[in-house]
């Protein structure tokens, strides 16, 4: 099981060198999944036979010289809002509980062409709406660092899988921080690329003007390598942009001497946990020691990002989720006539958080309120973008915490949605302004929970982000998450019943290897 501690690049290198095969790597990951899943619940769908079949094909391809890429043979976990042809894609929602896509998301297709072995589909907040992975219809996911804590969200399953050693890296999606915040809570590196950098084709839409697919991994280099594979123009996503500067791994190790880094003062105000603040300030000093010029400045408008985001995201969600009506795919309830069927299907198919956002979005778009709420938010977004533009005249990067706290305990967040939304304060600016941003682990709090440092760059400046994040990572190595063992798994199960019960509207249907063996 030693290989489970390697980064995806280290694994890829050793597979290419013939030290182990893609099949052995996949088997090791499946064994760890078998140990972890009863406790972590990182995955919604796993099909071990399909995993091994892919691994055998990839291994043949490596031996025949068809797969020479750095990540060939490395097993990856995919967030369950990215369509996988022929494999169930649920968005962690009852309404898509049995939906099998007829096509593949572009980011997934690019990984396959690069020799990835897809392990399965990871748990998430329903339709990516949430910050804890507790709004999933398939039960909550646990944080491998502390089983009583959430992994963050909405890409919580992807992060718990990578931290727990079940997968070598993962894809997530980030509309308001959904890659960076769970990466921060799980001690991982998570990168949200510039809007338009990665195709959204096949990503089930939440808020289309902000959704972006990105990598989650154990190292900055892994994130750079994955981004190199998935970035690029796709004619099927007209918001994806054609750019040639995608050799992201080329900047790893580049000197960051003289790089200008600005710290927005407003990011260290009320609501920030003292230990998180201290760790992030220490990280800023670490970057200064690497040669960066670090100073504080006033970004402005920070307090307005959360209300702007929730207005726009809810409006777009209410429109995007109108397609789930029980006619074309997914769940259908019985009803008296067409309209009654629509309403019953949606009411039974969506969970409370999704309904809350659809209602708010429908309201802010409705006649009489559109100008006061929706257009006002779009105007404020323009002002926020201007504030970032002004900052990037002076600075190469902005630095701050990824989240105000470390991972909260399971069950303590959903009761107060507004308080949960305020936790997105540092991440959503990048989504509103389309900026690339990365979360890198920068310490543990006194309870042993990971703290994340966020770096943000101007549009299409991922290379600056990666160069600085890599320099920081090399200067302050971060520990890997302690591995779960079979004994810990069994111990955690009893305590699990309470939290599982809240979100089990859908029967879990994944097959673990152990279960498969039992069933013959």
């Amino acid at each position, binding site marked *: 099981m030693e290989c489970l501690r390697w980064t995806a690049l280290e694994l890829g290198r050793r597979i290419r060198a013939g030290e182990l095969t893609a099949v052995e790597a996949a088997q090791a990951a499946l064994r760890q999944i078998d140990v972890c899943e009863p406790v972590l619940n990182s995955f919604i769908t796993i099909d071990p036979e399909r995993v091994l079949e892919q691994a055998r094909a990839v291994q043949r391809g490596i031996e025949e010289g068809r797969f020479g890429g750095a990540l060939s043979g490395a097993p990856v976990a995919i967030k369950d809002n990215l369509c996988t042809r022929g494999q169930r894609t649920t968005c962690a929602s009852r309404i898509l509980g049995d939906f099998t896509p007829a096509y593949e998301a572009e980011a997934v297709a690019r990984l396959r062409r690069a020799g990835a072995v897809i392990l399965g589909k990871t748990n998430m907040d329903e339709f990516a709406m949430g910050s804890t992975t507790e709004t999933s219809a398939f039960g909550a996911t646990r944080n491998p660092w502390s089983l009583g804590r959430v992994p963050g969200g909405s890409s919580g399953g992807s992060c718990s899988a990578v931290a727990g050693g079940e997968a070598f890296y993962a894809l997530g999606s980030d509309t308001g921080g959904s890659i960076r915040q769970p990466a921060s809570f799980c001690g991982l590196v998570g990168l949200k690329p510039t809007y338009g950098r990665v195709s959204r084709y096949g990503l089930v839409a939440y808020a289309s003007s902000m959704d972006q697919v990105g990598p989650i991994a154990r190292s900055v280099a892994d994130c750079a390598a994955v981004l190199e594979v998935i970035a690029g123009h796709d004619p099927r996503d007209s918001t994806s942009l054609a750019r040639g500067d995608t050799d992201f791994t080329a900047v790893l190790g580049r000197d960051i001497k003289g790089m200008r880094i600005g710290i927005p003062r407003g990011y260290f105000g009320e609501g920030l946990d003292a230990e998180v603040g201290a760790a992030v300030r220490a990280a800023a000093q670490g970057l200064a020691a690497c040669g960066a010029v670090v100073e504080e400045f006033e970004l402005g408008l920070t307090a307005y990002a959360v209300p702007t985001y929730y207005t726009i995201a809810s409006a777009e969600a209410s429109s995007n989720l109108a397609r789930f009506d029980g*006619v074309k795919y997914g769940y259908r309830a019985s009803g008296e006539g067409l309209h009654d069927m629509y309403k019953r299907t949606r009411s039974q198919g969506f969970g409370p958080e999704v309904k809350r956002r659809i209602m708010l979005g429908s309201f802010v778009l409705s006649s009489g309120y559109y100008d006061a709420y929706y257009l006002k938010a779009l105007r404020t977004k323009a002002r926020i973008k201007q504030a970032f533009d002004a900052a990037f005249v002076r600075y190469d990067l902005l630095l701050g915490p990824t989240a105000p706290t470390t991972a909260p305990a399971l069950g303590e967040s959903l009761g107060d949605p507004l308080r949960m939304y305020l936790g997105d304060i540092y991440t959503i600016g990048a989504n509103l302004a389309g900026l690339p941003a990365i979360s890198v682990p920068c310490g543990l709090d006194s309870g042993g929970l990971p703290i994340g440092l966020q770096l943000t760059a101007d549009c299409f400046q991922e290379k600056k982000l990666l160069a600085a994040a890599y320099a920081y990572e090399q200067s302050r190595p971060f520990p890997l998450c302690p591995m779960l063992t079979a004994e810990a798994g069994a111990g955690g199960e009893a305590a699990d019943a309470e939290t599982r019960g809240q979100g089990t509207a859908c029967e879990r249907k994944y097959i673990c290897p152990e279960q498969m063996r039992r069933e013959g």
Partner: protein
Amino acid sequence: MAERITGEMIEYVGILAKLALSEEEKAQAGRDMERMLGYIDLLNEVDTEGVDPMTHLFSVANVFREDVVTNGDGSEAVWAGAPGGVKEGGLKAPRTLE
């Protein structure tokens, strides 16, 4: 300031959102929305006089292409997921007219 969210407003939003809510859900939705809109009112502090609403981050133009089919016929795989089944090349849905 956010207006008080009345029962009629929640009924209306429920119609727009195509959601059938129980009485309890309606009451909760009213409370949630009132609190959230009260918070969103914070935006009234921001001077947006003369600022255009920003819908797109980059100046992208319409993308045109020839109207040529490039993908194969995937209709069977798409229809396979229709919850009401398919009849004569169309998706089956409940009757809309008696």
